[in-house]
């Protein structure tokens, strides 16, 4: 079974995000980049499916600038067989639909039985791609997946998605799109051997032309980014305990309107 895993490289969760001077992007200097954590669940699940079935191929895909190669190499170190890097300045301003079109084109070329995404990237939290790609391909898509089991004949999948207070189990035909939720698995660390072996694996570079598409101007563009206003300092209520409790309750009720 061939499985495609689209991944996004995002700033490390510990990054102090700063809005850039043009207020349309974030300051990228000094950022440590990582694979978006939900995408790591997707990579791990793909590797587990391959291991469980005893055969198959896991292909990691990413669209982005040169630095994205590092994230792809991390996927290879974890165990993915090869990677595809859609690396074309024409995609510099891509919105989610443009990205979805590019990924759908890759998927058409590669013809996997399954495409596993993370449920959203942790940088802009759009969560739009899996559904848009599935729509473009005419495939079923299942979001917030907590567990999955592929039928022995590889024709269908049963997947449980997280819903409020429980699990909703779906049956879908393959090929299909899954979007992984936290809890699906515990991603492995790459082993030293995996890291050393990663450089021998292929990362194929693709341009828009290789995919037979011409990126259109984005229909969605960032108008402005704003930092959150700094949090107001906390307030210490001192003095006599009884008085203080009364004041606290009053403040919670009348000022914070929390109770």
């Amino acid at each position, binding site marked *: 079974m061939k499985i495609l895993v689209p991944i996004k490289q995002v700033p490390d969760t510990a990054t102090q995000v700063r809005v850039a001077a043009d207020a349309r992007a974030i300051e990228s200097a000094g950022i440590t980049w990582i694979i978006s954590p939900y995408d790591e669940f997707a990579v791990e699940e793909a590797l587990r499916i391959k291991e469980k079935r005893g055969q198959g191929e896991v292909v990691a895909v990413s669209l982005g600038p040169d630095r994205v190669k*590092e994230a792809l*190499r*991390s996927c290879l*170190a974890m165990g993915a067989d090869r990677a595809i890097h859609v690396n074309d300045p024409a995609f510099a301003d891509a919105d989610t639909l443009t990205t979805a079109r590019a990924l759908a084109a890759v998927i058409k070329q590669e013809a996997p039985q399954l495409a596993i995404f993370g449920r959203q990237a942790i940088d802009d939290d759009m969560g739009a791609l899996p559904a848009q790609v599935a729509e473009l391909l005419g495939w079923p898509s299942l979001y917030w997946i907590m567990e999955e089991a592929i039928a022995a004949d590889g024709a269908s999948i049963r997947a449980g998605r997280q819903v409020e207070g429980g699990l909703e189990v779906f049956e879908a035909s393959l090929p299909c799109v899954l979007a992984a939720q936290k809890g699906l698995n515990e991603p492995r*660390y*790459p*082993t*030293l*051997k995996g*890291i*050393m072996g*990663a*450089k021998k694996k292929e990362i194929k570079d693709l341009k828009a032309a290789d995919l037979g598409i011409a990126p259109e101007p984005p229909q969605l563009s960032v108008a402005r980014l704003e930092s959150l206003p700094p949090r107001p300092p906390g307030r210490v209520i001192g003095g006599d305990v009884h008085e203080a409790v009364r004041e606290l309750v009053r403040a919670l009720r009348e000022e914070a309107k929390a109770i």
Partner: protein
Amino acid sequence: MHVELTEEQEMIRAMAREFADKEVRPIAAEIDRDARFPRETVRRMGALGLLGMTIPPAYGGSGADAVSYVVAMEEIAKACASHAVILSVNNSLYCEPVYKYGSEEQRQRLLVPFVTGEKIGCFALTEPQAGSDATNQTTLAVRAGDHYVVNGRKVFVTSGRESSAALVFCQTDRGQGHGGISVLIIESGTPGFLVPKVEEKLGLRASDTAEFLFEDCRVPVANRLGDEGLGIKIAMSSLDSGRIGIAAQALGIAAGAYELAVAYARERRSFGVPIGQHQMVQWMLADMATAIDAARLLTLRAAALKDAKKPFGTAAAMAKLFASETAMKATTDAIQVHGGYGYIKDFQVERYFRDAKITQIYEGTSQIQKLVIARSLLGGA
């Protein structure tokens, strides 16, 4: 000159850091308190490929370079110095010499399982009267047909009780002085190989430090590593590599304590400001950061020389000397930054302080490193 790691070395650092933060750091205080050898995480280090990093893939290793080894050691030591010494001894003092001097048969039998983490190994050179004066060996191995009969005592063997095999330095020809020292690989469970004692220690408490007693212990000649008389050469070349590992361990201890001190200096307030705003606290942190960076560069340089197959013994001695002195100073100051809380076990820095001391002692004391360095400066003079 390049001072940046390769992408691959950065990936190794990220892997070691993630493993250390998720699996080692959470148990570090507890295994220190209970003096418990962390078998489970040591096995995990084997599965990740950290126990025989530089050994070629044909023998189960990953064929990583010495720089990668330093980088991984630093990250593990930042979380727990006991894990780091287990790693260092298995890599530098067991696997490397068995790979370098072992026959094909010995590599298959006595190396492969020790690279994968199925078993771990140790290095028994020190005797009660032979510490710094390491060539003053008295353990005797007398040849009897296809066996040696070993009698003697070894002390302070890191991982001694937990190991499945030990490199044991013995006199096979007393008339030859240190030219008569040979190495036998003695497997645990061999009759006459006893472990009468495990030491109680100030630091590195999760690493076992054992005493060995050999009483008419019969060891097959097939377990001799290299020719008779090669013992001191094997010891010295292993210790040259080992010192890079210990330098990296010391570096990690210093860097770990420093990170705790910086975090604390941001949080703790006195006189209305975070203590990091006081110039005298800044001074300590700046000194720490500078010395740690210098120690890191010295250690990476020694490793890079080794990777380039150039002489690295003096560079390794300098790195080990400077990094271990830095570890002691940085952990002392990290406690100072924490004030009274630094002296209390709830705050991790007191463990780093206790763990730092040994790095100035084993694999050659700081005084011995100075001798090694001075000798290389002055030649035979």
